[in-house]
């Protein structure tokens, strides 16, 4: 089975202190460290496990600049066979639809049975997977937390609000967005990254993909960010203060008053 996994390089929220820049239109990007979007790691791990079982190969693709190569290498160190860097100055400022268009073009140039994305990105809107499926005119399932390969089809599980589980049968090719918890992504050590350090990663731009740059870049974006801020602390949130005993006492008092404890 040929699997394409779409991945994204994001500022790691666990390892950065996110602050708004002085213009108030983005976050302060000096001193940030980036990593693979957490959901994407699960998607890549799942793809590797599927290929381990039924054969085939895993390709990881990302849209970004030269620096995005690092996330491709990390996923290749996990075990993805191929990397694909979709990069072009014209891609700058693309909105979700733009990114989906670029990835769709890349999918069409290959011969993939299955396309996986993370359910969402740390800094994203969980929109690219669904758009790709529409553009490719293939089935789509989101928030997938189990995949079982059957004869020419997939049996997949989806998480439903309230902790319930849905099971579906999906025809291939299809696009699935992968939820965390579907597996336990393997660890990528320094040694693994070094092993793939010299592997050539092909780059493709707008012309290679045969897409009109003016349709995907910042100018074509119909969705634009107009503001970025840290919300004010809302009313109703109260920080309990004092020693541990005092805090516990107050908490119990509140819980009793509001009917949480009887």
């Amino acid at each position, binding site marked *: 089975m040929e699997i394409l996994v779409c991945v994204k390089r994001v500022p790691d929220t666990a390892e950065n202190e996110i602050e708004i820049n002085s213009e108030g239109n983005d976050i302060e990007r000096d*001193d940030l460290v980036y*990593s693979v979007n957490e959901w994407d790691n699960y998607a890549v791990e799942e793809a590797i496990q599927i290929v381990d079982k039924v054969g085939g190969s895993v390709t990881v693709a990302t849209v970004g600049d030269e620096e995005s190569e690092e996330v491709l290498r990390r996923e290749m160190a996990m075990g993805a066979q191929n990397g694909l860097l979709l990069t072009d100055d014209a891609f700058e400022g693309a909105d979700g639809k733009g990114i989906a268009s670029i990835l769709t073009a890349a999918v069409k140039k290959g011969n993939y049975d299955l396309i996986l994305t993370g359910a969402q990105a740390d800094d994203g809107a969980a929109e690219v997977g669904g758009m790709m499926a529409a553009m490719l005119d293939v089935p789509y399932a989101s928030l997938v937390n189990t995949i079982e390969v059957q004869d020419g089809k997939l049996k997949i599980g989806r998480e439903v609000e309230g902790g319930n589980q849905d099971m579906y049968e999906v025809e291939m090719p299809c696009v699935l967005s992968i939820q965390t918890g579907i597996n336990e*992504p*393997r*660890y*990528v*050590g*320094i040694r693994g990254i070094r092993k793939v350090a010299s592997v050539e990663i092909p780059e493709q731009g707008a012309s290679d993909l045969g897409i009109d740059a003016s349709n995907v870049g910042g100018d074509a974006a119909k969705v634009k960010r107009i503001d970025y801020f840290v919300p004010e602390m809302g009313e109703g949130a109260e920080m309990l203060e004092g020693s541990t005993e005092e805090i516990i006492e107050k908490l119990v008092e509140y819980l009793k008053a509001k009917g949480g404890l009887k």
Partner: protein
Amino acid sequence: MEPLLQSPAAFDVFGIPTVIFSVLIPVVAVALFAYIIAKRLAPIVKARPDYRFDRPVERVKNILKIWLAQWRHPRYMMAGVLHIIIFFGFLILSVRSTELVIKGISEGFVFPGLNTFLGDIYYTLKDYAATAVFFAVVIAAVRRGIFKPERYQYTEAYPHDHTWEALLVLFFIAALMVSESLFEACHVAAQIQAGIQPDFLAPATLGWFFKNLLVDESHAMLQNLHIIAYYTHDIVFFTFLCFLPLGKHFHVITSIFNVFFMRLDKGNIRPVRYGVSEDQLDDLESFGVKKYEDFTWKDVLDFYTCADCGRCADNCPANTVGRPLSPRFISLKARDYAFSHYPLMGEFVSGGALIGDIFSEDEIWSCTTCGACEEECPLGIEYINKIVDLRRGMVDEGNVPQSLQKPLQSLEKRGNPYGMMEKKRADWTKELEDVEVKVLEKGETAETLYFVDSCTSYDDRMQSVAQANARILCAAGIDFGILGKAEKDSGNEIRRFGEEMLFQDIKAHNTEAIQNSGVKRIVTGDPHAYNVLKNEYTGLPPVEHISQVILQAVKSGKIKLSGVTEEEKDKVFVYHDPCYLGRHNKMYEEPRSSIDCIPGIRRVDMLRSRDRSFCCGGGGLMLFYEPTEDERMGVRRVKMAQQAGAHVIVTACPFCLTNIEDGIKVAGLEGKMEAIDLGELIAKHIIK
């Protein structure tokens, strides 16, 4: 003159001269023994290299102390003394037993020298030795069979009870002692009956007792018993010999080698592969131990040597709190694996992966590398290197618990496991108004580097330890500075959790930063940093722990300490030995003496202190690992301090302080007990 009793060399049974058996039994047994040993050597030959032939003088010293003088045995007094009796009995009686074997062929045989006065001494000594061994064996059997000390128990983790083996061997030994004595007693009884001067039998020995018992028996009875005793001895002796390499009594043979080859240095981890330098590591196909043949030959010798005495497990904090790890079972499982995959008969089979087959992931991640097992083992068996090598194998396969992946990634990206920004590493100095801490960058220099390390730099609670240490360094008049954002985690746990390449990177970074700073010495308050900088980095100036600095400054009068405060005067203090300061670096006295420098302080020791200290739960990455356990080690430790009558636990390690403070809370002892870092305690008492 007709001999009083016919010797085995001259006797015959139904016309068959018994001398045939005297020859046949040793020949067959020695051949069988050689065959078994050859088979047992196979996994050792196939194992990876291990450099253990260096520093022969120290190795011989270990033999004299740990093997011959049985140095570690009395740590368990009852079992230790019994073992010492049996051990020395074996050494003494080995001469006699060999003599007996030859006497079965050549009646008058005596070892050269033993027909002089030396013989008189020796034969008396061996009579008492045999008697002492006999009684030691009886006591041991009662202990093992009836009282069943807890540390010999077998659990679900290793459900193969070996008690039968212990009892069988005790029976062998008792049979040897009895038959040897009986053989001689018959002869002496016959001498007495014939009215000739009997050979000397030391009073109150087994032989003496049997002689008194037999002196009125018929000549035929004595003759038969004489022969039966001889061949009982002969058969048991050689059965025992061939039985040794089949189980835990292999140590009788291997112990002297194992002690000779035991690790000489503490606090370090062996290289990924002996003979492969750090620059060549990238060329290795595989890292660590994944299959049995990835172990080194010393590892296999360790497995063979384990006597299943349970001392390691009894001291292992992971085992004590119910984590799925017992060092003893690591050895036993690995020995069973060698015996079944390298069988005495049939083909050798190469097995698959060890993790998931004989070891579980959680078992291997459960170890805090505290070193209590190695400190205790009377046979010099090692565990930390094997655990680390198994982890290296798992890391190489990407098989790392999710709870550890994030901190490892943060270490790679930010140089600390918390994912905090590099530029905030020196933030603890901001609240330090009375002391100016230099950051050694942009040409700023100092004589001494205070290496803070990640936990003390970033952890809210531990920053107060950094501030206290800075105050101490300042009060001691030491020209010091810190590396600030150029400092990365010291990497002690990165290496011990098997991420060797990340350790190599971080070591190279820190080494360069320290060398560039131009300092003449390094001081740290974190024993993990102290250990790794001192024992595993190269090319650094001398490293000291803050307790050494304190003691020196107090002794030289640079720091004067005030007496106990009103609040402290009714409290009892206890010092908890951090593993990486104590066991791994043998620094037991400096912190204690430092505390004792405070006038009027009352300090006690816990039952488990110094080299028997009980790990608080582990440091560095171990703080992120989520083990399955019945109780936290920290809680257990706090209860030990409470038993010692202490109110304040003083430690000298940020991780110990974290674990112990948590332990106090979890144990519900807040208000009754407290924990404080040595630096904090001393800084509080400095007279300005």
